[in-house]
């Protein structure tokens, strides 16, 4: 592109060795860069936070700017589970199954008070936070949070995806984490 006035910002080049005609960097950084800019969210929206997420998807906040172009309501090829809203205990196994069907690497955002802690519903029917059934990477506070906060949560996930070691998912710590949730 020769037009300098373009407001398109290219992704930052990772650290590496540059010379005439070549550029060398570590595989990990390239993969991190690719993952960061190609997150595919699966919105699991049950209530008010889901409405905020819909605003986040709309043109004003435009979640697509962050390389999360096509929210998909299927775990197929999705790598970011966004749980938004109250999860009843009866719905717990459904959330867990959706998570289990996603392929590694996968991240989870718990959006809003209900998904993180059960919120105001300290009752017999509401799951007191989805981290009781699946591991969560980022918690977005608020009841419900503003779209800006959801975007911030997404950017925190981008940071995690960019800087995550390629071997992290094979590590004994990660296996132990999944085992503690009785997954696989």
């Amino acid at each position, binding site marked *: 592109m020769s037009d300098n006035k373009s407001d398109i910002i290219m992704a930052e080049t990772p650290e590496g060795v540059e010379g005439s005609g070549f550029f060398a960097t570590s595989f990990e950084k390239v993969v991190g860069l690719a993952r960061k800019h190609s997150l595919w969210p699966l919105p699991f929206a049950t209530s008010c936070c889901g409405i905020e997420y819909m605003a986040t998807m709309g043109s004003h906040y435009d979640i697509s700017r962050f390389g999360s172009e096509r929210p998909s309501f299927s775990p197929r090829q999705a790598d970011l589970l966004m749980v938004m809203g109250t999860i009843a*205990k*009866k719905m*717990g196994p459904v959330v867990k199954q959706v998570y289990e069907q996603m392929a590694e690497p996968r991240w989870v955002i718990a959006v809003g008070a209900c998904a993180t*802690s*059960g919120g105001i519903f*300290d*009752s*017999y*029917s*509401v799951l*007191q936070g989805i981290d009781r059934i699946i591991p969560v990477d980022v918690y977005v506070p608020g009841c419900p949070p503003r779209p800006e906060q959801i975007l911030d949560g997404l950017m925190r996930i981008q940071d995690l995806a960019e800087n995550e070691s390629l071997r992290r998912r094979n590590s004994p710590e990660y296996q132990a984490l999944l085992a503690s949730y009785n997954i696989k």
Partner: protein
Amino acid sequence: MADLTNELLVQSLQEKFGDQVFDIQEPYGLVTVTTTREHIIPMLQALYDDEFLKFQFLTTMCGIHYPDNKGKELGVVYLVHSFTHNVRLRIKIFFSEDDAVVPTATNLYQTANWMERETWDFYGIRFEGHPNLNRILNVDEMEAFPMRKEFPLEDQTREDKINTFFGR
């Protein structure tokens, strides 16, 4: 056909069941009677079959719990409707917490099937003869009955929302 008045309805019930119908009240014009567990199904059946009354629709039924009412802690309320007269009738039964068994009304009303499962789920009242009496809205692993008064309103599995922080 003559209109079905409350007087006529009460009179008709007393003719059929005599002493088995008691505690007759009319809050807001709705005839409310109490009967016993043994007589509830024959009574519903008689109301259903009656040529004149035709109480053939079960609007709702659910459990109630009065823990202070010793020996009669639990109850079931039936609300039946006669479409012919557009008149409703409320029938209550009470029994002990230790012996929470009631004969099913599913043979009479198909709609009682769901309602009885819900009542079992939330109040722990067993319905004898129900075709599929198990949890319906709560998780299967749940052991308590959440609509009973002794059941705590809050989830007891929480560790972080302790009273110190919430002033209660």
